[in-house]
């Protein structure tokens, strides 16, 4: 005979349909989203990993000042056991967009075609898909480069540019203003050589080298080139952000959503356990009778676990189906919205199944089993007597002589303390997510605004060679790049400025500084937790020469990690002639022949990080926001419902006694409102601290620095959302209270 208690399950489900439906939907969607993330992530990571072989991605590249000679190339290939490929490119601009143009690639760093085809004749060009999306360009559109019109024949992804980094030292890629492109060799040769870069990629002939051996070999190649040529850039493949940024990011997203899933499941499991315990309390005498009649503890534990486990399991299965169908594409779209990835194929991931089905089910099982076993350990007699407190002679908590209502509410809070603790934890967790969803855009906007507000001038020219000009307001400066070595290989690039002592663009007083004293940008102090008087050691990028400076003060310059010194000191330190300068700061565009200009930095160049993050992460912020509010509301709703149900008898009694609706609200709804309010008061600063902590940990691994500071209005907004969401729940609670009949108490005369 099947256990007849099972017949309760469908009825329990019917009676509490709303509650179980909400839990079910939330679990299904959470698991679906996570499963989608894992499936899309795993599929894309696999495609990404396979792309190294499929598209023959380079083992590194370097840029020389001049074309390498055949003899030198042969020598390099023979000595280092590598094959060198020409990967020359030319950069052309159309408006604010920079096109880095390559010849069609065949031997190395292959091209994945998303739409259209590779150019076949002069006048045709294929551009990066992600850039095309941002710039609203389609196949068939025309672009003008170096005064010649090109028709876009294909939207592609270059396998060595899954993230569109202009330079490996950039803090962020720039898919909005920068693209890679391929044209036919004839078309390439026709483009002006003004911005030609002699870029060479290499592949190790021995394909079975270990990472350590590859690292040693790349060091040897660098030494060889430094000795025999003038090198302007050198990037081994493991250090290449354009190749690795997307892959690393996809991995980190997966870890993040997994943590999210497990926290949600744990909260849900506790909610289920609290629900079951509340049912057990309600059915205490029945349970006592059943136990007295011979039902074992095991049979009852199984009975009370069945429904949560069935809902969990069905939620996990449907969630996985959604993950493999709908959510996978949504997540893939998020990745494609950020990166220039090659075309991916979906792979079945046993890992995703285990992580989103088996582990959540096991978590749910273990937490419920633990809570229910603990609860059902009491003797049958205790259940019959409704004596479910573990501690004997439990005395009432002493409450000061507050007003009656305050004392009453305090008693309710103490009575339901375990539910309220879970509520506090849940609110804290959803607040962290909520803040993340709310704060990112303002942080980026604020960062952008700070950059703009603190830009020393409108234009910053870096010249290839000295060019004297007539403008009085243009101010000469010197610039160089040094780096600070870090353990993870991604060294931080520092911009070192040599400024006029009486600079009209920088309000820094260099007089009185000692020989090794310098100013740094405020981000340097923030990132490395340094202070005035500390020293920093920077080194030349491709040499071992080091410079140690003492920090005399900081200057607000958010766009990069920077060092400021007097231009004469600069010339001394970097062995430059007495009249040396690198370019001009100016508020007016200068009339300098383009061939002398290496770079012209404008506001757009400075705000690229904020713009790119907004572009690629905007949708993600929104998802977090919605998810956080949903989690918050669901949890507060379920727990407050349980608390009301637990007190339905008491509510019925106070109704009989003649309490009015608003008075009952002031007792029961207000008790939960107070806990929600306290939880929010704790959660808002806690979330700010946690996001700040995580931010520092994440940004610490990136080159550069983007400071986190939640604007106070966001914290207020967060609090208001919390209160507003609770008001809806409060209204639902009021409705529920009104429905509790007065005879409820009369029925339960025990």
């Amino acid at each position, binding site marked *: *005979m*099947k*256990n*007849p*208690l099972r*017949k*309760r399950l469908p*009825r*329990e489900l019917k*009676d509490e349909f709303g509650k179980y439906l909400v839990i079910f939907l939330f679990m299904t969607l959470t698991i679906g989203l996570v499963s989608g993330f894992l499936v899309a992530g795993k599929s894309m990571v696999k495609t990404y990993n396979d792309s190294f072989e499929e598209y023959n991605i380079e083992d590194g590249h370097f840029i020389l000042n001049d074309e390498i000679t055949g003899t030198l190339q042969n020598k390099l290939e023979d000595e280092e056991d590598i094959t060198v490929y020409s990967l020359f490119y030319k950069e052309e601009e159309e408006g604010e967009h920079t096109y880095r143009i390559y010849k069609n690639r065949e031997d190395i760093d292959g091209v994945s075609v998303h739409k259209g085809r590779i150019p076949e004749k002069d006048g045709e060009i294929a551009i990066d898909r992600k850039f095309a999306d941002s710039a609203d360009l389609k196949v068939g559109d025309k672009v003008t480069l170096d005064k010649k019109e090109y028709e876009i024949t294909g939207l592609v992804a270059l396998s060595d540019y899954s993230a569109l980094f202009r330079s490996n030292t950039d803090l962020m890629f720039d898919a909005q203003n920068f693209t890679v492109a391929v044209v036919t060799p004839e078309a390439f040769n026709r483009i002006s050589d003004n911005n030609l870069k002699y870029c060479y990629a290499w592949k190790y002939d021995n394909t079975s080298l270990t990472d350590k051996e590859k690292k040693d070999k790349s060091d040897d190649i660098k030494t060889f080139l430094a000795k025999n040529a003038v090198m302007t850039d050198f990037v081994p493949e493991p250090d290449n952000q354009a190749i690795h940024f997307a892959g690393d990011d996809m991995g980190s997203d997966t870890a993040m959503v997994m943590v999210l899933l497990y926290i949600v499941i744990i909260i849900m499991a506790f909610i289920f356990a609290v629900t079951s315990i509340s049912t057990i309390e309600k*059915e205490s*005498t*029945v349970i*006592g*009778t*059943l*136990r*007295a*009649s*011979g*039902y*074992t*503890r095991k049979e009852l534990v199984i009975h009370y676990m069945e429904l949560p486990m069935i809902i969990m399991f069905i939620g996990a299965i449907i969630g996985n189906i959604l993950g493999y169908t709908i959510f996978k594409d949504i997540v893939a779209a998020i990745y494609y919205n950020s990166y220039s990835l090659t075309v991916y194929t979906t792979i079945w991931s046993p890992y995703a199944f285990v992580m989103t089905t088996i582990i959540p089910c096991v978590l749910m099982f273990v937490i419920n089993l633990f809570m229910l076993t603990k609860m059902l350990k009491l*003797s*049958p*007699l205790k259940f*019959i007597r409704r004596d479910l407190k573990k501690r*004997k*002679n439990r005395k009432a908590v002493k409450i000061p002589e507050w007003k009656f209502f305050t004392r009453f509410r305090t008693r309710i809070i103490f009575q339901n303390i375990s539910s309220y603790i879970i509520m506090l934890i849940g609110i804290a967790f959803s607040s962290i997510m909520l803040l993340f969803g709310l704060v990112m855009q303002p942080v980026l906007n604020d960062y952008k605004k700070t950059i703009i507000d603190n830009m020393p001038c409108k234009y910053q020219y870096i010249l290839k060679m000295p060019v004297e000009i007539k403008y009085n307001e243009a101010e000469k400066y010197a610039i160089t790049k040094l780096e600070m070595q870090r353990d993870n290989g991604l060294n931080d690039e520092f911009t070192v400025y040599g400024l006029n002592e009486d600079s009209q663009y920088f309000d820094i007083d260099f007089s009185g500084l000692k020989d090794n004293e310098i100013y740094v940008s405020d981000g340097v102090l923030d990132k490395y937790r340094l202070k005035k008087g500390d020293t920093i050691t920077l080194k030349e990028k491709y040499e071992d020469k080091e410079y140690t400076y003492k920090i005399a003060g900081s200057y607000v310059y958010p766009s990069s990690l920077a060092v400021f010194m007097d231009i004469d000191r600069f010339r001394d330190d970097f062995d430059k002639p007495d009249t040396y300068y690198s370019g001009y700061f100016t508020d007016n565009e200068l009339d300098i022949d383009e061939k002398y200009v290496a770079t012209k930095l404008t506001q757009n160049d400075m705000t690229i990080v904020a713009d790119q993050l907004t572009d690629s992460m905007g949708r993600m912020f929104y998802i977090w926001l919605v998810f956080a509010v949903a989690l918050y509301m669901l949890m507060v709703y379920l727990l407050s419902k349980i608390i009301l149900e637990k007190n339905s008898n008491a509510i019925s009694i106070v109704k009989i006694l003649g309490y009015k609706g608003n008075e009952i609200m002031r007792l029961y709804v207000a008790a939960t409102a107070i806990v929600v309010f306290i939880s929010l008061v704790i959660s808002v600063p806690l979330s700010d601290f946690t996001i700040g902590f995580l931010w520092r940990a994440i940004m610490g691994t990136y080159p550069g620095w983007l400071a986190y500071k939640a604007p106070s209005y966001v914290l207020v907004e967060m609090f208001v959302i919390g209160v507003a969401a609770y008001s809806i729940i409060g209204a639902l609670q009021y409705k529920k209270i009104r429905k509790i009949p007065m005879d409820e108490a009369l*029925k339960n*005369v*025990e």
Partner: protein
Amino acid sequence: MFLEIEKINKYYGEGENRNHVLKDVTTGVEKGKICVLLGPSGSGKSTLLNIIGGIDEADGGNIIIDGAKLEDMKEKQLSLYRRKHLGYVFQMYNLIPNLTVKENIEVGAYLSDSPLDLNELLNTLGLWEHKDKLPNQLSGGQQQRTAIGRAIVKNPDILICDEPTGALDYNTSKEILQLIEKVNKQYGNTIIIVTHNDAIKNMADKVVHLHDGRIRKEYDNENKIPAEQLEW
């Protein structure tokens, strides 16, 4: 003797609040007989019943049922013992609210390898036409009949009834007592009824009066009358 109760002692509370609720209680009941435990509130009758039922532990003494000592049994064995040999009826019915009458009785049937015929029992209990109703659709008497049905469907050796008529009116109480009597005759169960209603002693084979935790009086009832004739 089928049920032997030997020098049962029971205390509640600790320190100054320690209360000796059962004091060397010794008695016994023959198989298939109805025993009524009488006494005022606080006399210890429900505590004794709970100890006999194995849901409370004595602090001294023995309960021996058909030769098996309850004191020697561990929690699991006790649970198994209750499952096989005992049926419980409480004053407040304790039915499962979202199961029908029939299903509530099935909850008892599930515990037995050879339960009584469910349909026949529903008829015997006068619940046939109510079998698909939920407890909240029933009167108190119907609920108690369902509770009795749940207890006896597994045909237990001992049926323990704790104030089975405590929440019922006169007529319904008599109906329930008649039912208990009928069950005893039909299935031969040993029945122990705890009550503070003095009149019920007249339907018993054995009467035990408890007062302040001690047996004040016990006797075999030579003048047993049918439940139908009980008056109070």
